[in-house]
């Protein structure tokens, strides 16, 4: 029990944070689908995309929401003594920031896979770090699930013992 991190957020707070994690996964999924849509149907390797294209705006808004959700989960982890949740989310936040830089590099240097090596590198950075952020957010979610389950099991038993 000593090695488990249940924090001091309480069951209600943990459940709310878990819901935020699930909402964040939905945003990750939409971010992936819009990214793939742009990759396959809009640029198709030969065409370019600009910052003001509607699909790009949708993708960027989703990226902002994704960043905000991940940041909130990180802050909750730091404030309520869940070190692993905080560190995994911090890694996800850092990945998302660098991925955004990769995305901006992709747009500013041409906006198409055939625009040059730097553009292609930006695209690779964006997609690789997206996946890394997804994995890190997932591990943070698992830690929250674990904390909820432990709290659910320990609380009734403690009440019965008293």
């Amino acid at each position: 029990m000593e090695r488990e991190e249940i924090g001091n957020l309480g069951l209600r707070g943990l459940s709310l944070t878990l819901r935020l994690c699930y909402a964040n996964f939905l945003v990750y999924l939409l971010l992936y689908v819009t990214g793939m849509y742009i990759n396959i149907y809009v640029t198709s390797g030969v065409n370019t995309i600009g910052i003001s294209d509607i699909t790009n705006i949708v993708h960027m808004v989703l990226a902002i929401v994704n960043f905000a959700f991940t940041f909130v989960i990180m802050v909750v982890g730091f404030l309520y003594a869940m070190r692993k949740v905080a560190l995994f989310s911090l890694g996800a936040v850092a990945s998302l920031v660098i991925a955004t830089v990769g995305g901006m590099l992709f747009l500013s240097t041409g906006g198409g896979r055939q625009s040059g090596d730097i553009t292609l590198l930006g695209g690779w950075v964006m997609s690789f770090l997206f996946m890394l952020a997804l994995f890190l957010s997932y591990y943070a979610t698992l830690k929250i699930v674990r904390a909820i389950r432990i709290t659910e099991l320990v609380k009734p038993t403690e009440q019965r013992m008293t």
Partner: protein
Amino acid sequence: MYDNYYYSVPSSVQANFSNIFLQFFAAPDVFVHVAFAVLSTSMSIPVIVYARRVGLSKVVLLHVGAMSSRLVGFVAGPLFIYFSTSSINNAMSASLSTFIMASVFLVAVILTFLSRIFIVREDVRIKFAAPMQQSLVGR
């Protein structure tokens, strides 16, 4: 050559099963991609076996779902090559095949992720619920 994606299907590839199948071994990046797809699909098999043994039906179902999702990808991948061959050259269908391949990949990832949540829940139950019940009985 239909130069539309990260991977370009050579113009020599014919739109038949053996040519498309041999294409998996022709380029190292395609071979590695297919090998990882096969590996990640087959890794669900031991999980299903163990989950069945301990009675985690939701984990079994989620991994069966992930495997089925990957199998859709195994159809869409060759279809992408088929539609990209110079004799067929159907960009719309090739794009659709790629989009399906990409989408089912993430569906499989999410299903696998969800299965781990149920494994964690069961792990915690075994570690905490059983010792606590024993201590209550002891009192």
